[in-house]
């Protein structure tokens, strides 16, 4: 059975989704979904271990060898992504039952879990596959289910946000489709490994250049890179809390993975960074994203919207690390992907708890919550500290590596700007702390109690992971470095 782990990781949630329709009862479906996600998590741990020990795992679907059939190819990079996605999804699902009962009508709850599992399966499919067209198919599975999940939000603005996301997402997907088509036309293959062998022969043609440009733009739309981020804040802000926690922690990471996979593995780092002035474009856009989004975040009155803008800013950091184009920079990006998933998972889940108790996440409703919901607010504070990058939290680790990588590359101004960006994070998170601890509760909110344990446990699992990986950095750094090195083709 061990040999089948790569495919099992994807098809377990994929086939569990239709089975939910047969189960029908929301309570059972939740338990079932939790089990499925948990087993996918265990599989991804086993896979990571296997990859770290013995290198790349290849799995031929249908028994057809690579360029003719579709293959799954798992190296260190996708093993990490699989771990992030399944881990976050499992922890978020722990809280889902309580939150969903409050936020979604009874007759839609089963459908919610079906869509959730489909989204999970879609993302896992994207990160494990070694075939360019298969990426497109699974991208659509995950995005279609994400559109529907977002539209399930209670607020009617959720519908509008979801529609905008659908249009932007479909444009992105069609761009990716054009890119894949152009690559296929020039090489005659869809397999990533095979593409990377055959692309250098035709690398100087204008067609390949166009293919590359379309892929990058399409992926950046999905990635919500500034200035293509317009769909993201609203979509995150008005989706059901569980969906926000899950998508914010995983969806953009998957897009970033695609960007890294296509630039480094398929086109090759030297092609990617010489044909287009990619480095300059990305470093400028990344930093602009950090500042523009952080400043917008300061003016938000809705805390979910505030953290959504902060997500755009964090994507900026990851892109800066990526654009440094060195092992150190990529390590920092991968670390930040992992860490940001932990932070944003914890933060949005805690917001879900607030939503559960007071039915709103407007800043003015946070007044006095510090005393009424001490554990939830403490979690938000720790998450915010991590977002700022205070030592002993994960946020510090990734920022540290990012600054080091920038300095190593001689980019002093960039390093300074990264630190300045963190200052902005202090400003916008301070607003929440101020509201929660230094203001008297709003009228009508005096009777609010602490969130139920079904929220607190998953939230604090994520928060303690935040602190644990902030102190003991060996594991995460070792894995991230190994993955970055393997992309650059050095090291073991």
């Amino acid at each position, binding site marked *: 059975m061990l040999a089948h782990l790569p495919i099992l990781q994807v098809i377990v949630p994929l086939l569990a989704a*239709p089975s939910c329709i047969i189960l029908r009862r929301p309570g059972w479906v939740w338990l079932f979904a939790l089990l499925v996600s948990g087993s996918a998590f265990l599989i991804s741990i086993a896979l990571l271990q296997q990859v770290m020990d013995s290198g790349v795992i290849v799995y031929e679907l*249908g028994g057809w060898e690579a*360029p003719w059939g579709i293959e799954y190819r798992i190296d260190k990079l996708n093993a990490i992504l699989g771990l992030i996605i399944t881990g976050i999804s499992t922890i978020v699902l722990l809280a889902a039952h309580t939150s969903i009962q409050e936020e979604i009508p009874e007759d839609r709850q089963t459908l919610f879990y079906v869509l959730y599992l489909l989204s999970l399966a879609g993302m896992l499919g994207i990160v494990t596959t070694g075939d360019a067209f298969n990426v497109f198919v699974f991208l659509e599975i995950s995005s279609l289910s994400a559109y529907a999940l977002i539209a399930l939000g209670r607020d009617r603005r959720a519908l509008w946000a979801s529609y905008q996301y659908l249009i932007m997402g479909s444009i992105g997907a069609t761009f990716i489709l054009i890119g894949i088509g152009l690559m296929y036309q020039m*090489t005659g293959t869809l397999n990533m490994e095979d593409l990377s062998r055959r692309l250098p022969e035709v690398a100087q043609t204008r067609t390949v250049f166009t293919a590359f440009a379309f892929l990058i733009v399409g992926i950046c739309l999905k990635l919500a890179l500034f200035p293509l981020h317009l769909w993201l804040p609203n979509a995150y802000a008005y989706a059901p809390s569980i969906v926000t926690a899950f998508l914010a922690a995983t969806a953009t990471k998957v897009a970033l993975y695609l960007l890294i996979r296509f630039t480094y593995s398929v086109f090759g780092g030297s092609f990617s960074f010489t044909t287009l002035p990619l480095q300059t474009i990305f470093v400028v856009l990344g930093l602009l994203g950090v500042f523009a989004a952080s400043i917008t975040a300061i003016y938000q009155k809705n805390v979910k919207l505030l953290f959504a803008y902060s997500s755009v800013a964090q994507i900026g950091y990851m892109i800066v690390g990526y654009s440094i184009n060195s092992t150190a920079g990529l390590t920092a990006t991968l670390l930040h992907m992992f860490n940001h998933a932990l932070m944003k998972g914890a933060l949005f889940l805690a917001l879900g708890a607030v939503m559960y108790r007071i039915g709103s996440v407007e800043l003015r409703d946070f007044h006095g919550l510090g005393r009424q919901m001490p554990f939830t607010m403490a979690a938000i504070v720790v998450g915010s500290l991590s977002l700022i990058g205070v030592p002993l939290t994960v946020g510090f680790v990734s920022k540290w590596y990012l600054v080091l990588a920038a300095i190593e590359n001689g980019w002093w101004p960039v390093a300074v700007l990264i630190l300045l960006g963190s200052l902005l994070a202090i400003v916008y998170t301070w607003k929440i702390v101020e509201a929660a601890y230094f203001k008297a509760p709003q009228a009508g909110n005096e009777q609010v109690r602490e969130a139920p344990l079904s929220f607190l446990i998953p939230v604090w699992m994520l928060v303690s992971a935040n602190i644990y990986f902030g102190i003991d950095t060996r594991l995460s750094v070792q894995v991230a470095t190994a993955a970055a090195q393997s992309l650059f083709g050095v090291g073991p």
Partner: protein
Amino acid sequence: MVLLGFLVCIAIAIVRLKDLFAVVMLSGIYGLLSASFFVTLDAVDVAFTEAAVGAGIATLLMLVTVTMTGRYEHSAHHNSIWALAVVLVTGVLLIYGTLDMPYFGSVDAPAQLHVAPRYINNSMQEIGVPNIVTSVLASYRGYDTLGEVVVIFTAGVGVLALLSAVHRPEKDDGIVSVNVSMHEKYLILRVVTKILIPFILLFALYVQFHGDYGPGGGFQAGVIFAAAIILYSMLFGMSTARRVISQPLIQLLSAIGVLVYGSVGVVSILNGGNFLDYNLLSDDPVAGQHLGILLVELGIGCTVTSVMVIIFFNFAGRTEDHMRNERKSA
């Protein structure tokens, strides 16, 4: 060439027109014309699907939506200069990209030389199905097709989550009286439909099981099957159709289709092969491939039919509700 010219004309007309009804009909014609174009380019399977989807289902869904949302588009293009700039840049980039392409129809293009020849030369020995598209679709790249089935299933679940409303079963005499009043109005249509539906179903079955030898397969058959049901429900009223086809049952069917496909893969794992390795379904690899493709196509047909019906029922049901509410408020 002429067809492409038509396509451009239609696309420009769609940009200019403000009457959404006309726009939708034109987009249906666009689908049909591109299907004809696919035939001239020897892509019969694709043409079949595009005709069924682009000219059929998509147009139908849009029509239902337009009846609900209103017929005319009124705002001016508010950001057309920006849009034009973006579009021009992308267009120029694409044209620039075409300059190094192998010529249209050239025999020695890389796409013709690398992966495809294996399918053309060996699929007969390896799979034993004359229609190469079917063998690539269901076997060589069977996993993509599983993904495709899941995509359509996702769409069905998504539409359900967005539009489903609790329909109280109407009283029988209500249905009967509506039916009687409709009967006179639509007499000719109803009679002809009753004659046609068995043939449509027969044709769907033919397409389903003939996919190995000619154009067709589970997806196209599913769409045709669904078309028959939709035709029925359009002429005999939604509530009658709802009583014939129960909603929970059809949801169950859409899930079962995916599960059939998936379990073929799981069985091949249990038989000691890789996921979706049909060779191991039977003692003889070619027979195994046949069996696998048959089952898989059944799964596709099942899911596609039920999802299309789910989508249409929910669209139409929602529109009916909306109309009723508007009439009440007016």
